[in-house]
């Protein structure tokens, strides 16, 4: 279970239709999903608009806890992978469910195809390890 954002360590939070996006004191963007959503391209566009506001022109490390999704459409997957380098210096994805594992395989392939594998996306089963990796990249 992902820790809920607390007022102490999250400065700015935006709630979209199916996602909550916030910026931690450490400068890491925290993205969490509620349980059981079918995420479409429209959702992806709304979420990246929110991310744009959170980042405010800077590229930041992003942590994503996809939660127990029902589905993530192909258009939404491609949209995320294609536009993430515009906002993020790296993306860490927490993999806890079987769906998340399968999804990570597709995202890795897409990242190779679209970003020539050069954009850093890593998948973690531990939130702490994921945040540590992001902190290292963020320097």
């Amino acid at each position, binding site marked *: 279970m992902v820790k809920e954002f607390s007022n102490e360590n999250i400065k700015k939070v935006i709630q979209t239709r199916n996602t909550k996006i916030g910026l931690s004191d450490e400068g890491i963007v925290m993205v969490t999903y509620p*349980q*059981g959503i079918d995420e479409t391209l429209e959702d992806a566009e709304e979420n990246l608009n929110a991310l744009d506001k959170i980042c405010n022109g800077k590229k930041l490390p992003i942590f994503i806890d996809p939660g*127990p*999704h*029902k*589905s*993530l*459409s*192909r258009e939404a*997957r491609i949209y995320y992978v294609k536009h993430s380098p515009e906002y993020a210096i790296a993306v860490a994805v927490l993999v806890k*469910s*079987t*769906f*998340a*594992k*399968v*999804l990570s*395989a*597709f995202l890795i*392939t897409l990242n*190779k*195809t679209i970003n*020539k*594998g050069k954009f850093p996306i890593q998948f973690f089963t531990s939130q702490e390890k994921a945040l540590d990796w992001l902190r290292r990249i963020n320097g």
Partner: protein
Amino acid sequence: MENDKLKDDRIEKILHLIMEFASGNLEAREKSSENFDDLDGIIGGLNMLGEELHASTVSRNFLNSIIKAMADGLLVLDIDLNILEVNPAIEVLLGYEADELIGNSIEKIFGSEKYLFEHMSDGKIKVGYFAGVETTCVSKKNVKISVAVSISAIRNDEDVYEDEIGKFIFIIHDITESKRREEELRIAAITFETHEGILITDAEAKIIRVNKAFQDITGYSSEEVLGKNPHIISSGRHDKAFYESMWKQLKQTGAWDGEIWNRRKNGQIYPEWMTITAIKNDEFQHIQYVAIFSDITGRKQVEEEIHNLAFYDPLTNLPNRRLLLDRLHLALAQSERTKNFGAVMFIDLDQFKNLNDMMGHEYGDLLLIEVSKRISTCLREMDTVARLGGDEFVVLIEEVNVNQEQALQKIALIAEKIRSTLVEPYNLDEYNYYSSPSIGVALYQGNENSPSELLKSADIAMYQAKNSGRNMVRFFDPYMQKAVENHATIELNLRNAVKNNQLKLHYQIQVDMSGRPVGAEALIRWYDPVKGIILPLEFIPIAEESNLILEIGDWVIENACRQIASWSKNKKTRHLILSINISARQFGLNDFVEKIAASIKSHKIDPSRLNLELTEHILLSNVSNVVEKMNALRSIGIELSIDDFGTGYSSLSYLKQLPINQLKIDQSFIRDIMTDVNDAMMVKTIINLGQNFNLNVIAEGVETEDQHTFLLNNGCMTSQGFLFGKPIPIEEFNLVFEK
């Protein structure tokens, strides 16, 4: 129980998805449950797998469709340049089936095309880059095809990030047609820059392009003529009808060719041979005109030289026999229409052979050249002098006169003029030489005689001249020869007659309405010792042809004034007015008025006793000058009459201007005055005219009382004629007054 059922349902969904994918339905999808456990993850994963596979299949099919639809050929090669894949376009281009190419080396198509393979072997082609090469490939039927090859390289495996080439892609574009067009354009460009001038206009005849030869020939640069009408180079030699005809033919047939004279920028006019072709669009409308022309000045010169050689004598530049015969044909045809007489003169130089023998042909040639020039100076522009060869010349004199006698005399004069010109001494390269011609003349009227007959006749006449002692003119027709000789004799004798005092004046009395003498007309007579009295009609025309008429005229004035002076001393005759006839030539002399005045003064006579009779012919010359002279004469006090009135060309407007005293009705009207209504009417009209202009009217040739009565009844108060007295010598005339 419920959990087991849910589990079974989801396993069923997983199996269903796998089977659908296996059967090719990549669009099959299943919904996961709300458990979010492994089975739901697998369902979600299979759904995503289906999406990717479907997208990949769609993408591959799309790509295949493009490759199949490509008009250009596509080859996929491995790194050893063996053919892996081809598209249908390459089969069409080369005539091979796909399986005849796949597995074979690229050399099967391109041979060992070095340039092509250099691109691929020296590292110029890298992944993600393209190279373009123009080369030729060879079809299955061994036909060379010009192609543009676009070569690119791709990786073998998309997972390999390094730029290691895995395959080559050849896209082959057939450029045979564009090469052919390029070649055509190249040929057209070379053709355009030919030695012939080319001018292209649009449909409105505005120049849109010219070539270098155009600029060389016309002297106009391209910038100077572009946008202008080709009229800029027209010479003005052709009339409007010429250009209208040209455009008419162009519009009807789309083409025109012909000779045309144009003008260079420097103003020089030159001949061109021009071909104009209309360019049409798909609707057969003329959109451009292409004119190709060559300067044919040189050709024209050669043609002219050939023409000259064919028709002219190279030594004298005179027409040769061929051209003479041609012109003679035309002259005879013309004479047939106009009935004018003409003549052919055959001229041969006497003793010419001696000159050649003694001095050489160079001197003979110099003489012939000089003779040709001298003959030409004796002729009119329209006449022809030709050299037949050697020392033989022929002169053609056209359209002389419809009257044979007059034509004969004119021709005789011309012949004599030529003869006398040719006997003048020649200076041949500083040597004085004397020559003479023998001239034979044949007259013609109409085309009864052929040109060769005429030449033969003139030739015979020329031999007659030779046989008669050379240096003379002979006519072919004996009658004509006699006539000419008579004419010459009369002229010679007349000249002597003046010197020898053989000319006398006879006086014919003129009377008023009561029959009283009021004057006389002095009429000249020639007392020839052999022939007796010769009337003026026989010798005055001959005198008119030479200056003798002036000499005779002076003699008449002098004698008339002397007679008036004589009459003035007698009471019975001092009132008489003496009329004398003045010829047009005499009147035309600049000092005529002064001469008359001097004679009047020297004889101290009353000028009003002298009446000058002028014919209407005098008025044909410069009227204002004639009027001026007449006014001068009137101011002296001399009387002036128009002689033979009614037979000439007088008009009322002239009559009004002339300061005359008297009209003299011609005797031809008086002769039939009692029988011919028209003559009677004419006489009445002239009398009325004279009265209206306040002029005295005198009738001549009055021979009967009836005529005299008619004249008196109609107001003609003065008469002259046999009824009152014939022209008689002065001694007899004066007796009338002594009685």
